[in-house]
């Protein structure tokens, strides 16, 4: 994971901005590991959270900043950012295994969102580590399908350090 970097990018919400970012990454040989885009705090702005694989993250942030529609680039790797992902995971849960699966899921506050004859689908929200741990826990039961959102992240407010437990 050493050359994975977490970046958030505040961009103008204009048609094609995502294509500009993706094209620039492709052209410069930066590898997008995960990407999430959505509206930001102001109406005409979007915020992207990008996990990128590149040897030199400074080039990545500078090239992002160079795009005309980019307002602000923040590199969050190494900082104590709030990071979240959503995972939908469908696992085998035959009748005899069902309660064991549900018990394990409860520990992770994973929410059962669909129950079939032989499977249960959980929704899990959390930081990437939590999702990875939950996946490990479910593997022995048999993972039928899995889908994850891109990561979203925000820098923590420095003054809120003592209240960290909330996040």
């Amino acid at each position, binding site marked *: 994971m050493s050359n994975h970097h977490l970046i958030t990018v505040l*961009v*103008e919400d204009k*048609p*094609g901005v995502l*294509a*500009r970012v993706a*094209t*620039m990454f492709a*052209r410069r040989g930066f590898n997008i590991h995960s990407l999430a885009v959505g509206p930001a705090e102001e109406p005409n702005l979007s915020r992207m959270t990008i996990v990128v694989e590149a040897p030199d993250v*400074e*080039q990545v942030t*500078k*090239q992002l*900043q*160079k*795009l*005309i*529609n*980019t*307002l602000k680039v923040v590199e969050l790797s190494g900082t104590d950012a709030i990071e979240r992902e959503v995972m939908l995971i469908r696992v085998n849960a035959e009748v005899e295994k069902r309660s064991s699966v549900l018990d394990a899921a409860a520990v992770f506050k994973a929410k059962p969102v669909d129950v079939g004859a032989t499977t249960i689908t959980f929704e899990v929200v959390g930081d990437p580590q939590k999702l990875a741990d939950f996946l490990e826990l479910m593997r022995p039961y048999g993972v039928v399908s899995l889908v994850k959102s891109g990561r979203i992240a925000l820098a923590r407010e420095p003054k809120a350090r003592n209240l960290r437990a909330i996040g």
Partner: protein
Amino acid sequence: MERISISQALIKALEFEGVDVMFGHPGGAILPAYDPLYDSNIRHILARHEQGAGHMAEGYAQATGRVGVCMATSGPGATNLITSLANAYMDSIPIVAITGQVPTTAIGNDAFQEAHTWGITMPTTKHNYLVTNAAEIPDVVHEAFHLASTGRPGPVLIDLPKDILNTEVVWHDPTGVVDLPGYKPTTQGHPLQVKTAIELIQQSERPVLYAGGGIIASGAHAELLKFAELANLPVVTTLMARGAFPDTHPLHLGMPGMHGFYSAITAMQKSDLLIAIGARFDDRVTGDPSHFATGAKVIHVDIDPAEIGKIRKADVPIVGDARTVLGQLLARLTKVLGSDDPPARSGWMETVSGWKSAHPISSYEQEPGGLLKPQYVIEELFKTTGGDAIVVAGVGQHQMWAAQLWKYTKPRTWINSGGAGTMGFAVPAAIGAKMGMPDENVWAIDGDGCFQMTMQEMICAATEGIPVKVLIINNHNLGMVRQWQRLFYNERFSASELTDHTPDYVKLAEAMGCAGFRAETADEVAPVLEKANSINDRPVIVEARVDPDEMVFPMVPAGGSNDVVILSKEDLE
């Protein structure tokens, strides 16, 4: 209020930006824009190929410093422009390209002459637009000119669907305020960094000022000269910066890089401080970057923050405009002078000028009855013009000789395709340069291979009355390719030979409406060039039939270390 079509608004917006000439080629989707052009004072030059139109706009921009404009239709018209856009992007040339597009209702349907121009040109432009809201046009054009010409200059493309072109709007003058919240180029260097830079310069024993194309783009040549003299710094000028510092100046060590001067390459290699201004540590300058100037600290001044630290870590990074920062460096240096004078560095100065005199560039011999040497022809052109010309080069051996052997003393007198190395650049770029600087003697120094890529633009020059001059260094080979095959491919000359006497360039010149001359021996060269220089009512093509086996030296093989400079053929044995 009077309503006008978007096409009219487009031309009006170009007039508003002060455009006096544009280069293009019409077609279906862009036809609405050609109609109001018929009544406009803007002169349109009908290029014979859109790539030519793009290079003309580049030549115009590089000769004048103003934004060059080109226009093409959708589909193949737009794709033909791509090479010029890529070229302008590499060499930071301010151009605005306008392309027609199929109507918005047809976009995405594989309509006739549809190409995804906006997507295709994204990685080869500084910025591009697909206009879908007609009312925006005056502001988009204004923004495009602003983006092309400020910060690090570059190409900007505006793609205009045909139905948008036909829409009517109420004209409004662009407000002049460009609303680009994500685009705020830093022009002023950070004062603390400027102070540190001066300290480093004062401590340095073996400094070299590494001047790049940014000096010319920002018009910083006068400041550069003052600063180099005041701080007592030897200067090298890159391929993009020829003319940014006078070649005739004692502090000038020549051009660095793959075919640079030994003095320039070696001074950088041995220096303890590189002061890079508007230069980007291109691989043709550094050779293998891990072996490049390993003992040097680096001060790097550039308006593009992404260039700083991209190839070489900077000890003192300064984001800013070359001219502004040089002004700041000058002010700071002037302030400390008296108490803290630059060291004389007499040892270093003697060493570098020793290299300069021991290894002059020209290493050819023109024997009176022997084969004509390409270098001799170029030196004769320099003599017959008194050096008073704008030189525009193609790409290959002739380009390197033109960069090495001419004595450049003023900016914007050397125009070439540096970053992209685009064969075919010279003829159209020379036409654009001549349109921008009609009183100058504009000479393209071209290769036979390059000339054949865009020679049809000589018809454009002849019919539009643009008296450019072209010197074809005809070695009936893709000479540079041949040189590499000789050196690195065991003399297996695969696909690098052009036919000896075809075409007949004199007849070809005449057929295209130009004057044509040929020189085959040394004593024919000067008289033919004199004749060419005296013609001003037509374009002129001069063919010089030269020795196909001459090679360009010095040479640092691609990816090699700059410690090993091959000085001549004899060095190879």
